[in-house]
């Protein structure tokens, strides 16, 4: 049974999504551990995903949900790659501090 989903309900979801995104962002900025930074990006992903689902529901448009499926897929693939990289980096320098890895500087 479809319940009423007005703009006030949407606002709640969007606030939650915003909070998740900002927590992820701040975490990404302030933490130095690569794994934690990676987890923060996942958090930002989920914030965006909630916004998609909520707006999709509000507009009666299923594209929002489709987009979330994509986000989850990409996140899974990216997680596999990122964790593999993290393992390799850890083998090289025996640390996961982001400040150590600055070889890509100009």
């Amino acid at each position, binding site marked *: 049974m479809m319940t009423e989903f007005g703009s006030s309900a949407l606002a709640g979801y969007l606030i939650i999504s915003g909070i998740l995104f900002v927590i992820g962002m701040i975490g990404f900025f302030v933490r130095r551990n690569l794994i934690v930074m990676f987890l923060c990006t996942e958090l930002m992903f989920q914030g965006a995903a909630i916004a998609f689902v909520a707006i999709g529901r509000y507009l009666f448009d299923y594209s929002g949900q489709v987009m979330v499926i994509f986000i989850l897929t990409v996140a899974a693939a990216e997680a596999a790659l990122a964790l593999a990289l993290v393992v390799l980096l850890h083998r090289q320098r025996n640390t996961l501090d982001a*400040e150590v890895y600055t070889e890509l500087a*100009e």
Partner: protein
Amino acid sequence: MPAVTVQQNVAIEWAGFILWMPLISLVLCGLCAACKVRSKLPALITVVSLATSFVLTAMLWQGYEAPVTIHLFDWIQVHWVDGSFISNFALYIDSLTLLWMLFVTGLGTLIALYASEYMEHDVGKGYTRFFAGVSVFLFAMGCLVMGDNLLMLYLGWEGVGFASYWLIGYFYKKPSAVAAAKKAFIVNRIGDLGLALAIYLIWSTFGTVQYTEIFAVLEDHSFATTYDTWTVHAIPYLLMLAAFGKSAQLPLYVWLPDAMEGPTPVSALIHAATMVTAGVYLIARTYPLFALDAAALPTVAWVGGLTAFFAATIGMAQYDIKRIMAYSTVSQLGYMFLGLGVLTSYGAAYHVFTHAFFKAVLFLTCGAIMHGFAGQLDLRKISGLRKMKGWKIVSYTMLVGCLCLAGFPLTSGYFSKDAILAQAFVTQGPGFVALGWLAIFTAGLTAYYTFRVWFRVCCGEEYFEAGDELHGQDSSSFHPHAPRLAINFVLIVIAVGAILAAAPYFMANETEGIHGGWVADMMHDSPAISGVPGAVGVHSTDGHEIHGSILGMDPHKAMYYISAIVGMIGIGFAVYFHLLRRSAADTLRNRLLASRSTRWLPTAMENKWYVDEIYIATIRTPLWIIGKAFVLVDRYLVDGLVVNGTASLPRVVAKWFSPLHNGAIQCYAVSMIGGAILVAALMFFMPEIVTYLQSLGETGSAGLEQTASIVGGLP
């Protein structure tokens, strides 16, 4: 005028081998070089192939009836809607072609044989290179003479120029030889430019470059009135420029004397007998085109006559015998152009023919002397050659050459030169009579300088100084080595040829109304006689036409006596100054030098009238200065400012932004988010940006729709 009928003849396609034989010889010489052959094999290959070419040419001549085209293969064929450009690799065989090919291949064979001995000290070093060069030359000369269109002539024209460059620079370790090769090549480029432009203009006017089609258009008498534009009038002058470059006429003759830096067989073959007559051939071949402008042939006559005189005065005062011969070549080529200009293409061709023989003899004897006396060519340092052991053949063949060149009565040069001199008095033209007297005077100078060489070198007391090419021998113990079998044999054969070259004059004519023997017959079938609109009537071949007079007599008869007398006077001066009283020549020179008013004459003549110096001052130095200026512009403006300046701009800009790339991942994240926030803030606070972007999107899509409608509208 006899119509030039042209038929495609399949039965004589073997004539192509006249061209292919030198090419085969070139390839085999290349193989010899690759296999490092250290014997006289390359000479054998070349002589055999060239002899085959000669035999084929002679067979072609024996079977000759009427002009034929022999199609070898399609070369360039471009067609478009309203025109085409066709240039086949085809041979056009008429009597003019045959006349030229007979002496080109014949002398080519003999001179290659001579060179097999002359070049023997280079066996294993440059021997193969030399004969490869000779093969290239013969192939290119064949293309030039036998091609059925102007483009093939151009191929050959450039080819002989290249072969000439190759062979003048044969002694590439000698700076003067390298300079001479470059000079020859560059001066020839000026003429080649004229030829290229002439071919272009001919094509754009006539729509074809094939001789037969061009002449077919010209024979249509409406042509002159229909095409009266300046481009048509420019054609003969451009062709003239080409001919004057290749045949060393004023003002482009300066390369030929320097070309004597090459080995002597090359001087004899390329720079005396064959290649330098290519200009005469070009004008004879395209003779009807010279009627396009009324002043064209008189110009040819005047340039030829002045060159003949000018070069003869220089030749009188030189001491290097090979250089004297070089200037005499320039001078004799001048006679040939004079002949063409005064409408006796027969006289010009006959002089080419006889000159090829006697000048080849003269050069080859010079070569033999140079070979035997370690490079000595100064006529003051060799004397009495006639009495030395083993030098008899050289001395007397040289005498034959000298007699012909001097126009001694009843020699071949006498008849061919007379044909030209007399015609100058017959043909009506601007100042042709004066030109005729100038040419007669020049004939006297020719006789003098020719016998100056012979009396100095071959007569008198036995005396010699060795040259500087001693090949490790000591100059005090030096003994001249007399020429052996190959050189002597070739000298005798060509000297006999030079004597017999008088015989064609007495042959009965096959065609009626023509005088002058075999060569006149050979010219008669070719465009050099037929197809000259307006010029036919005054031609000597039509015996009943206008006849001028010289001292109240018929010019052709009077000239027999006049030129004989002038020649004898010239020889007489030579006898006095260079045989009987050699000191008199030096006394005369010293007396001229001592007097202030006459000092300029011997000085200027010995210094070749300072022509080279004038060219250096007026052409080379300004070009050099301009060249240096361009180098500076290139180095500092183009390279410095434009190229390197543009390249340094991104580097400078990158310097400002490179600190942003510090490798710290969080910094990147911050800048990214900061950028996103900045864009969002801009869009929020300045909504007109959004409106503008939207309008852009709309016009963009509208444009797309328009394109789509156009595309959709096409069938």
